[in-house]
Every structure is written in C-alpha cells, then in structure tokens.
C-alpha cells in the first residue's frame, strides 16, 4: 500500500465523525494538527485506510470555565493554551508545558488532543495534566466515558480509548488561591527537542509561609508512561520547604522512576535528572512564591 492510497474524510460535526467511526468498514486514524501523524505516515508506521480529519469540527475547539472547572477542547492548539488568560491564571503548569512543545510552528499546529492521542512517555502536556488532576472525556456514538489522566495511558502509544471513541474534552478543577505550578524540561537543546526528562509540579502553599499543604509531582520520559512521584509528594507537606528539605525530597525522586537508556541519554543520567529537575523546579517555585507574595523569606 502506498501512502498516496490513504484517503481522507473531513466530517463537519462531531456526530458525523462518530458515525463514520462506528459504521464504516475502513480503518481510520484521527488527524488533528498532524504534527505527529505526518511524521509517522512518512515513516510508514501508521498503515490505515483513511484519515479522519478533525480540523473542521469547531465544537472540539474551546477553552471555558464552568463553575469550578476548566474545560479544554481537544482541538485547542498549544498556542491557544499559551495565550489564554484563563489558563494562565488557573493552569500555569499546563501553559508552561505547552510553551515547551517544539517551537512556534508546532505550537501553532499541534493540539492538546493530539499530544494525548500520541501517548508518548515524553509528551510534554501529559505530566501537567497529571498534576492538575485532569479528566479526559471519551465520546462514542453510544455514550461518554470520563477517565482520569493517570489511568488513560497503558504504555507508549497506547491508551484506553477504543477505535470508535474520540477525545472530546479535558477538564480539571480551577486552582486554589495559593496553588502554583511549574513545568521543567530537559531536552538536548532549547527548542524542537524531545524531552530527556520532564517534570510537572503543583503545590498548594500556606499563606505567608514556606509550608506546603500538599502537591503533586509527575515525571515524563522516565518510564513507559508518565509517572507520579508519590513518595516525593508525601514529603512535600512534612515541613517548611527549605533548601535542605527541597534537596532531600529531590534525592528521593530517582527511586520513583524507571528510565531506559536510548540514543538521547543513559538511564543513569535520566535518574539523576529526575532529581535535578525536581530540585531546580522546587527552588524556582519557592522563589516565585516569595516574589509573588513578597514574603520576607
């Protein structure tokens, strides 16, 4: 089969799209921004009969707030997330992650749904979605399922979505008054690079102090899927986030990850970098917390 034999259909509505997925015999692959899809196509990896182009389905493109929840449509581009004042207020960690996806071209074309759909262990938005406690909505012709981001990924390139389902929404709670987050990425260079290790951190702080009441930490590129660092998280609330405490928490990180060696980095470096990025991220967060609140510490 030649690449030029692959067809493309461009449904105008979600309903039409779901109908095609359910009833057509052809094997489909969804196409959003195409920044992963085209690469795989060129490599001859994705052999399917037909692309289902989502570009025209406007109802999958939104950023909204409803009560205490933020809703993002899967067709929202990284650039749209970066420039959303709402998300800057409520999901700084996701905004920062989107800033690290490729460079301007990728941010203009690539979508959050596509980043989730590709399910790469190095996908930059995924750790951010983990620490935001995001819920991913899957829709098929017969109904909807809501799956917590952490349960969504099975392995590299594999998710719980069935072939007749599509991602229709990403949602998470608005942030608390003293919540703040950060995304740290180590790649082989600053732009257009696949993460060697990345980490998303979100903290809930106690006003006027360096005490943390809880938080979440998720690492990418250090295992078959993105991993939460629960031991580190448990240590966050043990006391003031002093430099010593930060160093101690970070030292534990290498125990929480199970990286492999590949062309980009060795497993042992990745382990060390999990700790390094967490430590650097926590320092930067505490500096921001101090600057923002103009705290005397």
């Amino acid at each position, binding site marked *: 089969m030649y690449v030029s034999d692959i067809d493309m259909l461009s449904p105008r509505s979600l309903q039409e799209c779901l109908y095609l997925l359910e009833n057509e015999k052809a094997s489909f692959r969804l196409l959003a921004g195409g920044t992963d899809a085209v690469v795989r196509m060129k490599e001859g990896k994705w052999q399917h009969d037909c692309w289902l182009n989502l570009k025209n389905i406007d109802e999958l493109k939104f950023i909204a707030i409803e009560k205490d929840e933020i809703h993002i449509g899967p067709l929202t581009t990284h650039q749209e997330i970066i420039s959303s004042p709402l998300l800057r207020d409520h999901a700084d960690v996701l905004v920062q992650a989107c800033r690290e996806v490729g460079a301007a071209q990728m941010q203009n074309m690539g979508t959050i749904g596509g980043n989730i759909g590709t399910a790469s262990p190095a996908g930059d938005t995924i750790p951010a979605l983990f620490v935001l406690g995001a819920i991913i909505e899957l829709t098929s012709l017969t109904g909807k399922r809501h799956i917590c981001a952490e349960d969504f990924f099975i392995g590299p390139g594999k998710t719980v979505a069935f072939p007749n389902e599509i991602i229709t929404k990403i949602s998470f709670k608005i942030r608390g008054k003293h919540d703040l987050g950060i995304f740290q990425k180590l790649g082989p*260079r600053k*732009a257009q690079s696949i993460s060697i290790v990345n980490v998303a951190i979100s903290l809930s702080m106690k006003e006027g102090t360096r005490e943390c009441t809880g938080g979440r930490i998720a690492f990418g590129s250090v295992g078959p899927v993105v991993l939460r660092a629960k031991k580190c998280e448990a240590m966050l609330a043990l006391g003031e986030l002093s430099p010593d405490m930060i160093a101690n928490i970070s030292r534990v990180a290498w125990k929480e990850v199970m990286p492999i060696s590949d*062309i980009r980095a060795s497993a042992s*470096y990745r382990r060390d970098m999990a700790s390094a990025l967490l430590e650097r991220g926590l320092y930067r967060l505490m500096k921001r917390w101090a600057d923002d609140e103009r705290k005397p510490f």
Partner: protein
Amino acid sequence: MKENHFKYIGRRVPRVDAPEKVTGTLKYMTDYHFEQMVWGKVLRSQYPYALIKSIDISRAQSLPGVICVLTHKDIPGFNGFGIVVPDQPVLAHDMVRCTGDAVALVAAETKEIAEHALSLIEVDYEPLAPVTDAEFAMSSKAPSLHENGNIHSHVIIKNGDMDAAFEEADVILENTFYSPRQMHAFIETEGGWGVLEADGMLTIRCPGQYAYRDRLQIARALAMNPARIRVISNPIGGAFGGKDEITVQIYLALLALHTGGRPVKIHLSREESVIAGIKRHPFKVQMKTAAKKDGTLLANQVRAVADTGAYASLGGAVIALAIEHCCGPYKIPNVDLEGFCVYTNNGISGAFRGFGVNQVCAAIETHMDMIAEKLGMDPIEIRKKNAYEKGDRSSIGHELKTSVGTLKTLEIAETCELWKNRETHKKDSSEPWKKRGIGVATSFHAVGMGIGLPDYGAATIELMPDGTFKVGVGCEDIGGGNGTVYAQVAAELLNCDIENITVIQGDTAQTLDSGTVTASRSTYTGGKAIAAAVPHMIRLLTEAASTLHKVEPEDILIGENEYYALTENGEQLLSYKDLYAHLQENRLPTKVEGHFMLPKEKEELPRSGGAPHHLYGYLTHLVLVEVDTFTGETEVLRVVSIPDAGQVLNPQGLEGQTEGGAVMGIGYTLYEDVLMDGGYHQTANFTNYIIPTIRETPLIETFPAESMEETGPFGAKGIGEVVMIPIIAAIMNAIYDAAGVRIKHLPATPERIYQAMKTGEVRQ
C-alpha cells in the same frame, strides 16, 4: 571599518541573491518538476560489510510503472568514483563496505513505485563482521577492507629533538581527545536531475562544488566524452563540503541513458542522506605538549587517527591538513606529528568546512589553556608569546611568507569589552546554580590547495547587448556569497554600477574551469581571475571606442558606466550599448577571459601529504558560556569573532560567515554527532541529530583584524572555514572556566558535562 576610496570594495553590499532566497522565489534544482519526468531511486546496502553473491532484479523490472532497473552490469565505463582515488563503486559488484553503498538503481513513473521496486530487488548477501573502530582497523586482526590494507594514508612531520625538549620542559601535558561525526545538515539534501537531450548531449543538473570535476567523474563511469556532458551545479541549498564528492550525479547519468530521453530526478530523503552522505571525520587525537616555566612552548607530539569510513574520498587530504595545523599558529621548535586515515565500515567521511583542523585545534587550544593555568599565565598572553609572525618559522618548519594576523587578533581580543569586563560578566549568572565562564582560542586555516595539486582560477566577462556584463566563474556559490564578491570586484574594476553585472557560476557550458569551492579559496581565486580578465575587457572597449571615433586609444577615457572619446569636436560619450553595437557589427569578440595561478610553496615537507600551504587565514574567538550545574546544560551567551581575512571585501558578507561559522561551531561542540553502532546509523534524521536553532544562537560580534595580503584581490584572503574552528576550543575552555571540568570527548552534551562534574574530575 576605515575609509577607502572604493565604490564597492570594503562596503556593506547586500547579497545579490538575497531577495530571491529570502522571498523563496529561487528554485533549487531539486524543487523542479517536469512534464514527463521520472523518479530515480537508489538501493542501498542492507549490511555495513558483506559479500554479494547475486542480485536478482526480475521482480522489480516487471512491476508496472518501472522504467529501468540498473546494476553494476549496466555501467558502460569504470565502476568507481572518488576525488583522489576512485575506490568507491558506483554500484556495488561483489562486496558492500557500508550501508551507504549503492547496489542498484531504479527509474519509475512515481516515487512510490520506484521505492516499491527497490523492495523487490533480491540481493543475496553473505554478511561479514564489520570493522567499526579505527584503531582496530589498523591492527593485524582486522580484515582488509581494500586491496592495500586499511591504512589509506599515513603522514608524518618531524622537527627538532623531542627527547631533549621533554627533558628540559617544566610542564608536560598529555591527553586524548575524541571528536564527533558531524553532518553537514544542509537545507537541500543531495539530489538533482539528468536528461539525455535529443542531440545526444547529457545534461546533469546537480548541486556540487566543482562542476568540471564532477563531469570528469561522470565521463569516466560512462566511458563518454566529457565534452558531451553538461553539468550545472548552481544554485545550491548549502554544501559545506558535503557536495564536494560525487553525490548522485553518476546515478542520474546512468538512469538518463535508459529513460528514453525523459528527465530523471533523484532527491534523497533526509534519512537516506544521513546514511549515504559523507560526514566529518571522527578523530582520536593523542597529544603531548611541553612548555617552559615562562610559557614558551617546547615540544608537541601528536598522533591523530581519522575514521574515513568505507572510502577515501578526501580523507587523505583531511588528515594531511590536520597534521599541518595541529600545532596551532605557533612556533614550537620540536615536533613529532603523525596522522592516519583509516578505512572502517562506518559510513563515509570526507570534506567538511575546516577539513581536519577543527579536530586538532580542539586539542592544542585546550592544552594552551591548561598550560596557562598551570603556570598562572593569562591565556591570551601565552598565545601571544608563542604566536608566529610573517617571516618566522612555523612549528612544521617552514617560513611564513604571507600575511599573519594572529597577534593582531589576540590584541583585539584583549581589548574588547567581553574580555576586559570578564570578571563582571562571570558574576552575572542568571540563577545561583548557573556558573559562567569565558574562554579564548585561536587558530588558522590554509587557503587553497596544498603542494601537488594544481590550483588555478579562471573567469570570463562578456559584454551583453543591453550593455551589461556577464561575469562567469566556475566556482559555485554554496551559500557563502562569493557571487556577490565577484560582482563587487567586477563592478569596481570595470568602473560600473553593480546593477550592470550578472554573475553566473557552476555551469560547464557557460563558465570556465575555476577549481573547487573548497579550501577557503573561492573569493581569493575567483576575485583574482576576474581581476585578470578586466584589463582585457577594458582593452576591448577602449579599442572599440577609439575606432568608432577614429582617435588614438590614449584619447579614450573610462568614465563611470561609460567611455569618453576626446575628439576634435570635444568629448564624445559612448555607452556600453554603443560599444556592444560596434563590436557586434564588426564581428569582434565581446567576451574575454582571465586566468590566475595560485601562488604556492616550492618545497613539500617530505611525507606530509602536501604541506605547507602558502596562505593562511587566522582567527581568534572569545566566548561566554553559562553551565547549569543541575543538568550540565551549556548555553553560549556571547561570541566575539576576530578574523584576519586580509582586507575585508564586504563586511556584511564576512559577518555572514563569522555568524554562520560560530553557530556551526556551537553545534559541533555542544550538540551534533551521528551515532553509529555496528556500522549502522543510530541517528536517523533531525529528530535526534541536534543542530542549533535560533534559540541557541547567541549575540555574535565580529571585529576584523585586517592585514594586507599582497597576493590577494584587493588584499583579501579566505575565511570560509576558520570561522568555525577556534570557537570549539573556546567553548571547551569556557566550560572549564565555568564548571571546572575538561570535556575531551565532543560533543559536550549535558550528560557528559554532568557526569564529569559528578565523578569529580573537577578543578581543585
């Protein structure tokens, strides 16, 4: 820039090809599509080292849409190519020596059919254990990849008494350095098209660095009269040495003979380009350097081993140039230098901007830094102390007869803002765990060919009916902007506006053989050839004017864009158009030629492989880096580039080179390497081949140290390669200044820097 009386020389003349390149209207040769065109594809070897027992093309031939399938049996002439020794088969016959080896060719109606046809060619291989380490390749245990063994070349330069020097020394340093397999990463991968014209002429349009030599290599393989072959090698989407050797020209020619006159196009994918294209030679450099307490260098012992991969290409010349340059622009009285160019099954290495000097400069300039530190000397001071000047004897023992700018570049370095305020800059780090450092390094690079290779240039100037001049120089514009310099030189000397000049380059039907676009030679050579042609054109025009007005040639004056005849009736104005009309009517020539031989040294150092050169360009780099001690990431924040290019013909063009060269040097030092394992490329494409982007591009300042090179056009010499050389060691030295670790294995990736910091090889 100081004032001069020229209209174009020394001025910031914008690139003549800038508008079409910036707006994207220029079509590269691989952008073209033609009616009736067919696609060519190359079957590459499945193994890095194997015997071929049989090749069955029958299934591929019978695939609908396939026009022809060719193997070594279809080569009419000599089945081999290579600039120096033609040791690379056009199409493998009984053996493959790397995964880039071509085994068969296909032409088909579409690219996909051609690709499919490749998969139907059945090659029966007997895989052999590949030789993947150059040191192993030199041992008696390794199988011989070529008839004369695995050592393609061995060069030696010796001077003085090493034992006595090491005895006398106060400081001795000994280190081993490893360098990466850098890829040219040009924007346009190898490709082009070929067509057999109705009159039997074969036209090959394929970006290259020497159309005339490509033509000869094609002719040899086709057993065809070269005069029946036209090669058009310009414009080019970048080359950097990577299109110096034959890329796909011979494949295009072979296929064109079998497509019934239909044009055939080949354009390598990036993945195929990575596998089949040449790379910079990875080197292992062992260096032992001795100095006295006062910083005077006493001795340098070097053993360099270059992995040339499966075929020689220019590997022999690369190692020779490396050894010629491995002591830096210094006068070291005792040297013992040797280099080996070695065959392995690791792809193919060949020409690349810097041509072996990059790898050895990293070693000597690291040693200079280490010696300075040991002796508590200023790193610029120690370089000044040892730098040679014109008239001095170099480390390899020859007398420098042409301009030498090292001292001047070092003096500028010392007084520039970055160096003067270096302590303040270093304290300025953006976060507490980031450490800043400043490094310096100086180097040089030969201009033109070594002894034993004829080196000449030629240019034509033709007066056109519309009164403009067509200036033809064989040397292609591979991106450096030599075409603009040619236009400047011609306009200046003809005393006309640059708008009256059209430059054509790289076309065997329209330009004379002017040698390669390599060896930092094309500004110098092409410029001189034009300067040689101009007097002939002026004579032609003067004579035309004098016959037209029946006055003596002395009564003809050359004005700006016009000529004057001093007649009895006063001054008579003659436009170029008038002069053309006169020449045309009287069947007089309208085209002139200029020829130029590059000056050379007379005596070759025995066994050196062509050293010394007569001319060198010099350059000093300063860099400011910041190392993140959490991760080992290095950011280059500032670069100061101080070239001695002789007289600068176009400051803007020079900056194009110093900036591009700096970025390429940053890539080499920090990011780039084509990784191989067992003879297979692990790096497939730009996903993992990391080159700097604009975000890795720092502030780059250029302060030319102008010297006067008497032999050059308007005092100029070449600069295209040295612009990327000292920066490598400057960054390595700056990393040490910042983080206290010496990285001797490039690229200095975050992981390598981090591991060095972690394992405690840190400065005390």
